[in-house]
C-alpha cells in the first residue's frame, strides 16, 4: 500500500511565531496520521479559534474551521453522520477549557469517539497574551495585571472524572512522543484527549521550554493506566508543577455511536432513505 507523505498533508506555510510549540504539534499530527495509514481524504478535523486553530490552513484534510469553543459539538455531529470516519478536534486551552468547557464535559460523558488535541500554552496567544483557564494562580497578564485570582483548571482530572476513556499528556518539545500519543488517541475507540504542554514564546515568559524540561517526566512502564483513582492522583500532580507524560488513563467502553442501534448496520450518510411512511402516519389516526 502506498502510504501518504508529509507533503500530502501540508497546506499553506504556517504563520506561527518562530520557536512556537505549535510547530512541533503540527509535525506530530501529520506523522501520526501517516503512521495510521490515513490520507487527506480519509480523516476529518475540526479546528477551534486561536493560534492552534490556524493550523487549518496548514493541514490538508476534510475540515471545518469552527467558532471559538465549538469544535467539539461539530466533531460529534460529524461522527454521528459518519461514524467510520476518524474525527479529530484541534483546539486550544482557552478554546476548549474556557469558551467550550461545557462541551468538553459532555463530550466526555458521551464517550463520543473523537480525538481532542489541545494546545495548552496557558495564555490566549492570538488576542495577545491574556491568561487562559490553565494559567497558574497569580499569573500576571494583560487581563490580570495583579495576577489571576482563579486556580487553574485541570483538564486531565476533569476529563477522567467526566467519563473520558483515554486521557494522555505530552510536551510539544518532544515531537516523537507527542505523535505516539496522538496515534494512540485516534486508535482508541471512544473519547480521547491529548493535552499538549506547549510553550508560547511570545506571551508566556513563565511556562517556557526550560520550565517544562525541568518538570516533565514520562510515566514508567509499570504504570497501570486503567485505574481511575491512580489516574486522578497522577493528574493532580500538575497542581504541584510536576507533569506526567504518557497515557494517564485508558479503559475500553462502548462509544456513543456503538450504542445507537440504528447505526449498527451502516453509517447514517450511507444508509438508504426511510420511505415506509405508513408506519408514522398511522400513529395519528
Amino acid at each position, binding site marked *: 500500500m*502506498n502510504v501518504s507523505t508529509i507533503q500530502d498533508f501540508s497546506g499553506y506555510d504556517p504563520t506561527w511565531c518562530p520557536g512556537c510549540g505549535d510547530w512541533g504539534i503540527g509535525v506530530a499530527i501529520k506523522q501520526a496520521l501517516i503512521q495510521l495509514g490515513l*490520507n*487527506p481524504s480519509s480523516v476529518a478535523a475540526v479546528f477551534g479559534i486561536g493560534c492552534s486553530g490556524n493550523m487549518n490552513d496548514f493541514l490538508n484534510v*476534510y475540515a*471545518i474551521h*469552527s467558532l471559538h469553543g465549538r469544535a467539539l459539538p461539530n466533531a460529534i*455531529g*460529524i461522527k454521528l453522520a459518519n461514524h467510520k470516519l476518524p474525527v479529530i478536534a484541534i483546539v486550544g486551552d482557552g478554546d476548549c477549557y474556557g469558551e467550550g468547557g*461545557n462541551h468538553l464535559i459532555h463530550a466526555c460523558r458521551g464517550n463520543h469517539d473523537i480525538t481532542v488535541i489541545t494546545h495548552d500554552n496557558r495564555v490566549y496567544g492570538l488576542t495577545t497574551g491574556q491568561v487562559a483557564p490553565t494559567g497558574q494562580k497569580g499569573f500576571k497578564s494583560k487581563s490580570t495585571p495583579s495576577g489571576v485570582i482563579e486556580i487553574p483548571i485541570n483538564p486531565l482530572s476533569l476529563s477522567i472524572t467526566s467519563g473520558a476513556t483515554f486521557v494522555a499528556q505530552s510536551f510539544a518539545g518532544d515531537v516523537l512522543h507527542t505523535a505516539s500519543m496522538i496515534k494512540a488517541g485516534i486508535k482508541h475507540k471512544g473519547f480521547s484527549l491529548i493535552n499538549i504542554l506547549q510553550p508560547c514564546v511570545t506571551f508566556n515568559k513563565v511556562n517556557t521550554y526550560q520550565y517544562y524540561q525541568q518538570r516533565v517526566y514520562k510515566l514508567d512502564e509499570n504504570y497501570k493506566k486503567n485505574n481511575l483513582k491512580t489516574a486522578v492522583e497522577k493528574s493532580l500532580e500538575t497542581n504541584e508543577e510536576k507533569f506526567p507524560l504518557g497515557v494517564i488513563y485508558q479503559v475500553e467502553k462502548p462509544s456513543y455511536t456503538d450504542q445507537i442501534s440504528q447505526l449498527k448496520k451502516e453509517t447514517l450518510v450511507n444508509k438508504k432513505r426511510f420511505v415506509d411512511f405508513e408506519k408514522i402516519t398511522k400513529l*395519528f389516526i
Partner: protein
Amino acid sequence: MTDFTWLIGGEAGFGIMTTGVVFSKIATRSGYHIFDYVEYPSLIRGGHNAYEVHVSDFDVSHLSPTIDVLVCLNKETYEKHKIRLTPKSLVIFDEDEFEIKENCKKIIIPFKKILTDLKGQPVMKNTIALGASIGILGGDIDELIKMISEQFAKKGEAVINFNKQFVQAGYAEVKKSYSGLILNYLIKKSEGDKLVITGNDAFSLGSVIADCRVYSAYPMTPSSTVLTTLAAWQEKIGMVVRHAEDEISVINTAIGSSFAGVRSAVGTSGGGFALMVESVSFSGITEIPLVIFLAQRPGPATGMPTWTEQGDLLFTVFSGHGEFPKIVLAPGDNEEMIELTAKAFNLADIYQLPVIVMSDMYLSESHKSVSKKFVDNFINSYKVNRGKLINQIINNKSPSFAKATEGKQKYLRYKITEDGISPRLIPGTPGYYYQENSYEHLEDGHTTEEAESRIKQVDKRAKKWLTYLKKDFSMPKVYGDISKSEIVFVSWGSTKGVVLQAQKLLLEKGTATAFIHFNHLYPLDKEKVTDLLNQDKKYVLVENNSWGQFGKLLTMETGIEIKESILRYDGRPITVKEIVSGVR
C-alpha cells in the same frame, strides 16, 4: 350541520391532555374535522388545565367564541369558562362536588359516586367524562371503547376491561337521565382517514418525509414535543436524535452532521434560539445547510413559557452577526407546516444556508385534522433535492492518496459561480479534501483578509438570495379579491385560520374583504410585494405581538406603512371576534 366546541377542564396533572386528544380522534374517526387548543400553566401539578376542541363538518383552524359542551372536572373550570356559555350550552359536572346557581342546561354526572362504586382512581374521572360526552353528543360508544382498547393495548385485557366500565358508566348515565337533551352532533359518517396532528407533529412528519437524519435539540416549551416525538421514532425511521447539553451544542452538532453529508435540523424556542444565533452566522459563512425550527412563546427572557406570541419575527429575520443570506418561512397551518418543512430541507441544500421555520405555541401545540390523502399525495409528490451536492459513493478504504488525486483538479469549496452556489462535496470522498471556514476565505476555503477576495465572497453569498427570489420564493397567498374589497388584511404564520374565519363572518354581514397571508417571510420580492400593498385600500395588519413586527419589516422592504393594526400580546391567540369587531 355539525359545528360545536367541547371543552374539558380540571386540575393540572390529571390526564386532561390525553383525554382531549382521545376526544379529537373520536371526532375525526366519526368523519369530522377538528381544531383544538390547550391552556395550561408552566407547572406539572396544581394549576388549571383546559382543553377545547372545535368540531366541524368543514376544515377548521380557529376557535369559537362560545362553548357548546363544557365538562367540569372541578369548580374552577366552571368559574373560568362560564362567560363563554350560551343558554343552549350543556354543562357536565357532579353535583356532589359543587353547585351551579346560574341558569343553564345541567348534565349531572355522579363522578365521585361512580369512582367509589367501581373503585377507580381520580384520573378515571376523565374516562367517565368521555363516556358522558360521547353519549350527549350522539356519538358512537364503540368507537370510544376501541380507542380505550388501543390506548391500553400493552397493559392487557384486564386493564382494558377495567377502564371500559368507566366509559360505560358515564355513557349510561346520560342515556338514562338526559335522553331528551342528546345532540346529534357526532353521528358517524364516512369520510377519508384524517390525521390528528399538532404543528410540532407536522414539523416532525415533514422532516421525516424530507429525509432528515440528524435532529438535535434541548427541551424548551413549546418546541419540546418535536424532540420527544422524533426520539420515539428514531429507531424505526433510522434517524439519530441528540439531546445535547445546551443549544450551542445542539446547533453545532447539526452543523457537523450536515457538513458530513446528512440532512440535519434543530428545534427550540426564542431563548434557545438566542443561544444558537452565533452559529446561525457560522452556518451562513461556511454555507453549511441547516434547518432550524423555532416555536415562539411570549418573551422577553423566560416570559410566559406555555402561552403564545409572534414576538420573535424581527429577531429571527436579523439573527446572526454580519451580513449573510438566510431564508425564513412561517407556515399558516399544519398542511403548510408539512409542506414548508419538507421544502425547507430542499432550500437549505440548494442554497447552502440556514433556513428557519417559524411556529408559535398556538400552531405548535394545537391539533388540527389533516386529511390522510393530502399527506399521502404530498409524500408521493415530494422530491428530495440536494442541490449541487456532488454525490459520490463514500469509500473509506480509498486507494493511495496520490493515485486518487491523479488527474483531478483541486476542489474549490467556495467557487465563484453565476448563481452564487458552489458545488458541495461529501467529506470522505477519495482524492479530495477541503475546509469549511468560519473566517472569510478564498475559493479553496483558506483564510483570507484580502479586500478583493472578501468582496467576491460577500457578493457570491448575496447572489444566493437573488437566485432564491427568482426560483423558489413564493408570493403570499391572496384570499378574496383585492379589487372588490375595501378592507385588506395582512398577516403571517399562525394567524391564518382566524383571519379566514373573520372574512367569512364579515362577508355574511355584507363586507367583502381580501387577505394577504405571508408564509415565505424573508427575503421578500420587494417589487411584487409592493404591488400588492400600494393599492387604494384599507390595509389592516393582524399580528400576535405588540409592535406589529411584520408591518415594520414590510415598511423596511417596501417603504409602505400599514397604519391600521389588530395586535394581541397577552399570551393568548387572536380571536375571530377581535378581528371582526376591529374593522367594523
